[in-house]
Structure formats: C-alpha cells, structure tokens
C-alpha cells in the first residue's frame, strides 16, 4: 500500500524545476513521508471538527485608512528586483506571442 506521488505533475503545479534523478529521489522521499502521515488513518476522528487555527480570532479588521509607515517609495520597492524597466518590475511572459 505504498502511495505513489505523481512527482513530475506536482513539480509542474508547484513550478519547481527538477531533474530526472531528483524525480526518482523525490518519489522515494514522499513514499517515506506519506507512510508516516498515513498512520493518522488509524485515529478515530468521527464527529471531530478540523482546527485550522488556534487563537479563535475571527474576521480581524483594520481601519480603512492609509498607513504611510509601511509605504515604500518607488525606488525602495524596486530595490531588490533583478530586472526593472522604466520604474516597473519585469515579469516573465506567460501569454504566447501568436
């Protein structure tokens, strides 16, 4: 009952480039990890609600006002970008040209 993860498909979803050798290694690593995780199936959770967060906070709102203490100037915002053009970030092309 070993779980086989479709590694190349997941890599594509996660946008992670991997080599053929990595694909084989990852398959084994996932098998090992999921074998531990699947032990959870022995726990009786009937009637138990999931817990997604532990503080009990709900719908935390802030005032709808501009907070200039955490605003960047254009130069600050672009300071860590590798490629910029006329004061903009350059993003990879995702729409084909034709």
């Amino acid at each position, binding site marked *: 009952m070993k779980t086989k*993860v479709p*590694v190349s498909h*997941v*890599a594509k*979803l*996660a*946008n*992670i*480039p*991997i080599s053929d050798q*990595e694909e084989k290694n*990852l398959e084994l*690593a*996932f098998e*090992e*990890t*999921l074998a*531990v*995780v*699947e*032990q*959870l*199936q022995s*726990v009786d*959770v009937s009637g*138990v*609600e*999931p*817990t*997604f*967060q*532990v*503080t009990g*906070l709900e719908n*935390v709102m*802030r005032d709808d006002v501009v907070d200039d203490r*955490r605003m*960047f100037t254009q130069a*600050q*915002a672009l*300071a*860590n*970008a*590798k490629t910029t053009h006329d004061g903009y*970030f*350059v*993003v*990879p092309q995702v729409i084909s040209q034709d």
Partner: protein
Amino acid sequence: MLQTLTLADLLGKLKRKEISHKELYADLAQSYQQNDKLNIFLTFNPQAETESAELSDKALLGIPLAIKDNFCTTDIRTTASSTVLDAFVPQYDSTVTRKLKEAGAVIQGKTNMDAWAHGSSTETSQYGRTLNPRNPEHLPGGSSGGSAAAVAADMAIAAIGSETAGSIRQPSAWCGTVGLKPTYGRVSRYGVVSMASSTDSPGPITKTVEDSALLLNYIAGHDPYDGTSSQTPVDDYTKALGQSIKGMKIGVIYMDIPGLAEVKHLFEPQLKVFEELGAHVEYVQAMDPNHAIGVYTVVQRSEVSSNLARYDGVRYGNDRSFFGDEAKRRIMLGTYTLSKGYADKYYVLAQKVRTLFLEDFAKLFKTYDLLVSLTSPGFAKKIGASESSAMFGELEDMLVEPSSITGLPGLNVPCYHDPKTNLYLGMNIMAPMWHESRMISAGDAFEKHTNWNPWRAQ
C-alpha cells in the same frame, strides 16, 4: 570575557557604568574568531558598535543581539539561509526587530538556520551547516541552530529565534541554552519569512530564564500588522521570576516513548527537583505524540507550499531553481496534500487530529498547572545525521510537536550535562495558552536550584 555575561548582568554593569560598549565589543570581536570554524553568523552588522553607543540612553542600553536570518532587518541582508534570497536586503523591519531596536537593542548580526526554517539540524542551510559549540562533532539542532549556537559559544549575549515545531526549544536543548517559545499569537510574525503560518512563533534564546523573560517583555503583544496576533493582555514576565512554585501540580508526559531509553534514567531524577521546591509531580498519560508527527508534517508542508509560492524572483530574490532539496521536497509534498482529491485524505484529516490534541491538552490542564517532558529524545546528534531520513526533523521534534500544533507556550531549560561529551539534555516545560509566566516561574526555580545551567554554574 564580557561576552560571557548574562543579559541581566550586562544591563546592570552598563547601567552602573562599570563597563563600556567599547570593552564589550572588543571581547565580542575575540569570540567572533570562532565563526570560521562553527559557521554561526551569516552576516555581521559592521555598524553595531556605533549604533550601541547611540542607543545607550534607552531601556536596553544599546545591547547587541543575534537575530535569526529569517527576520527582515532594514539594510541588513536577510536570506533565511537560502540562496533564493542571497542578495535580499529588506527595506523594512520585522515587528520583533523594530520593537527591540526601539527599546535600545542593536542587531549584531544574523544567524544561520535550516533554509526557510525547514529542519532540525541547521544542515539544510544553503550556506553550510553550523557546528555545535559544545562539541563540534555534533549538530546544534535547528532550525534556530545559529541563534542557539551563538549564545552557547558566547558570541552573543542573547538571541532571537523562531519556532514552528521545536525550532527554538530543540536547538536550545542540544546547545545547552534556554529557549522560550511563546503562545502562538503572543509575538507578531510580521516581517518574519513565513513557514507554517498557523504555528510560527518568534521567541528568545538566552543564557538564563531571567534573560528570556526580559526579552519577552519587549517583543510580546498585539500588532496591527499581524492579524493573527492576540489582544490578550501581556504580563510583566520578569515578575514571574523568583516566585515559589509550592503547591503547583506538574504532570510529566511522554515518558513511555521507546526512543527515550538512553536518556530516561538521566532525566527522571531531575523531576524530583520540583518536589524539593514544593510542587506535586505526577506521571500522566497524554495523547500519543507519534500522531503529532503526521499532523505537523501535513500542516507544515501544506502551509509551506502556499507561503513559498511567492518566491518567483520578480520583485526580489532569485528564481525557483535556487531552492535546495529540502525546500523542494516540502513545497511539492504540500502541493500534493492540498491538491484536489487528496485534501480530505491528508489536510482535513490532519486538522481533525489536531483538534483531538487540543482537547487532550485542555483536559490535562484542568488537573495540572504545567506539563513537563524531555525537549528532545536524546543528546545532540552527530554531523550528517539529518541526511539519513526525509523525516529526520519530525522524529527529533516529536516531543514538542503536540504543543506546537496546539499553540501552547513552552520553555527549554538545561537539565543534564554529560561531562564526557560536553552535551546537554533539555527539559520542556509547557503551560496553557497565554500562561508564559507560570512556566517562567517553574523554569527559573529549577535553574536556580540546580547546577545544570552553564552560566549559573560558573
């Protein structure tokens, strides 16, 4: 030798003008020579001494602190120990570092960690592993291994780390330091490189419990920039120091785990210390921590896959081909456990078992004021140990994972020292949510009543 002072002693000496920043930095510079061998700091702040002099009239008197490299620090490179962020210089401070600076602390440098905080060894750092200053053939633990090692090596007076499931307490146990993981939501996560957003908790790594209480006072509290931070009132944690623990009920848990065999007989006598201090100590059954491994693994990988989706190399950093093996594993497994058709089988099931852990702790804390266990199932492992298994960290952190996924605060205090290896065991003291003061009282009393703390013993 001023670098060997505790934070409390250093503040006292600076206040009374018995010592100067200049003398302190001269001694620290000596200690920095260890960095070539131990690889603890990734970046030193060349302005630290100047900044200290400028802040000497503030509450923290310009004291230098070592900060884990996943806290954004203005104009100081922040890598999270990954080459994806190799050249990233933040334009803003995390709330934790901002608060510390405003109180008069100075960032002396940024410490090595497991890349993205993924791990319990500091071996997954893309800038090389950190060695344990107590015994360099061994690992410092992680992910805040650099912060714990900086304190253990007296390269820092005190440090800041972050914990998602063990990352403050486990390296503290392995390096023989004090580490305090606050309640989830007690300390703001704003500006900390996100790992698992539902459990990430910044906190102090220090020489003594007193020093942790001191620092927690400055970093705890609600932050409008972190919607998950709590408005629950903050204690003056230093008031919990020197308090009697007479009459407290302490439950001892996780003593029947097979992996403890080697160290159980060393740990058990330490529990008698609490009885000598007037507390009632009882062994009690808690929910099997093995299940927490599964819960944590799924929750962590899932949240990682979402949080690390932002690293696309457009606004900052390098592209996704720079991720190391561990990050790739975690992002991809999390992508899988959240994907259509598998989310119920993995993610939702894990969150249901998480509920059972919450209910179990709620029941235990009806009877007990505090719960105590070992922090790590053994002494610091040897170099290279993390490379043997994709589940290395999860197994090493098994005893702290249940309290992490339920958001409880926990405190590591050294509770045994092996003179042959110079390595330490750590005790994990857990309290109900928002009751950090109670575990500080117990940890402080234990530390002062025993000789295990390396700085108190001197």
